[in-house]
């Protein structure tokens, strides 16, 4: 089923995407409560990508980004990282805190906390959706928020995984409110064993 490009693309569309999308409705409700304004979270695109393809998707390895990291333990160990080009990430903070655009120019305690909560809610929902669909137990860690160069941050979580794997799951994530929308990339980096457990779980549940 996953051996050819067409089969794999169909698997992403029919299995992986629905598993994540359903659980993100819950994330949207939680975020709406947090900011006391309607927020919807959608995932228009999920793909398996090679490690070499990751940094171009955020604009290059040297681009400043805001990232939020969650570790994963349980049946699917590994890492999850949200990444936004820095001005986009700061714009998202303004939306979360109900501030005028361009208010945020650096991440203090309040701004970091808002992004951490967003990553916590959204990341946990993504992982819960996948775990439920695949029949796995996955436990996310508390989030860590950092600003730095995209390549430098990705290396920090990729390299321990890349020693045995060169594929990651790219989950393009859209946060939408009244009259605004912000797109970010979420990278799911399971260990080799974690990815196998996910694929096997999703395929066996689906069939």
């Amino acid at each position, binding site marked *: 089923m996953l051996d050819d490009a067409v089969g794999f693309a169909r698997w992403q569309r029919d299995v992986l995407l629905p598993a994540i999308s359903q659980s993100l409705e819950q994330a949207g409700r939680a975020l709406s409560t947090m900011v006391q304004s309607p927020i919807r979270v959608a995932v228009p695109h999920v793909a398996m990508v090679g*490690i*070499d393809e990751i*940094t171009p998707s955020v604009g*290059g*390895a*040297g*681009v*400043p980004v805001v990232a939020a*990291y969650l*570790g994963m333990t349980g049946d699917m160990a590994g890492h999850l990282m949200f990444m936004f080009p820095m001005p986009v990430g700061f714009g998202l903070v303004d939306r979360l805190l109900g501030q005028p655009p361009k208010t945020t120019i650096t991440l203090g305690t309040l701004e970091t906390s808002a992004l951490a909560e967003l990553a916590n809610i959204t990341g946990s929902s993504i992982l819960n959706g996948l775990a439920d669909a695949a029949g796995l137990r996955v436990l996310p*860690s508390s989030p*860590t928020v*950092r*600003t*730095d*160069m*995209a*390549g*430098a*941050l*990705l*290396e*920090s*979580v990729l*390299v*321990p995984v*890349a*020693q*045995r794997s060169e594929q990651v799951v790219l989950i393009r994530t859209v946060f939408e409110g009244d009259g605004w929308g912000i797109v970010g990339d979420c990278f799911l980096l399971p260990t080799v064993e974690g990815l196998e457990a996910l694929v096997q779980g999703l395929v066996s549940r689906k069939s």
Partner: protein
Amino acid sequence: MSAVSAPVTVGLGQAVVTDQPVGILGLGSCVGVCIFDHELGRAAVAHVVLPHEDGHVSTRAPARSAPAAVRWAVTELERRGSDRQRLVAKLVGGAHLLSGVDLPDIGAENVAAVRTALREAGIPVVAEDVGEDYGRTAHVDPATGRIVVLAIGRGERVL
């Protein structure tokens, strides 16, 4: 002082021998290894990912591990006429960005492995900007032997 222009970049596990400016963008735990032959105005520039060889061999990524990178760089420089006695090295990167998270400090392992490989090859390290918890971009100019290191919010440092 402005950064040296760097039209060519060296990606993960890649390496080049050149007399033209090159960049290594967004170094985190990886180490940029620059071995200069000042007499020829030439350098081998490698983007080392791992401290040890892991059995994954690729001609597209000759610098995947520290030992392989140094071996490749010395071989290619000598093949182009460099005398090993006059080679010197500068190192950039090897950070531990998510230091509060339960992740191994591969940056420190990479730096140690690169130093060991260079020592075994008889190449001295004459300058370095390594470790800490932030990313770096390195612009390398083989003609001058100069490296401009950029880090967000920290300005630039010249090696």
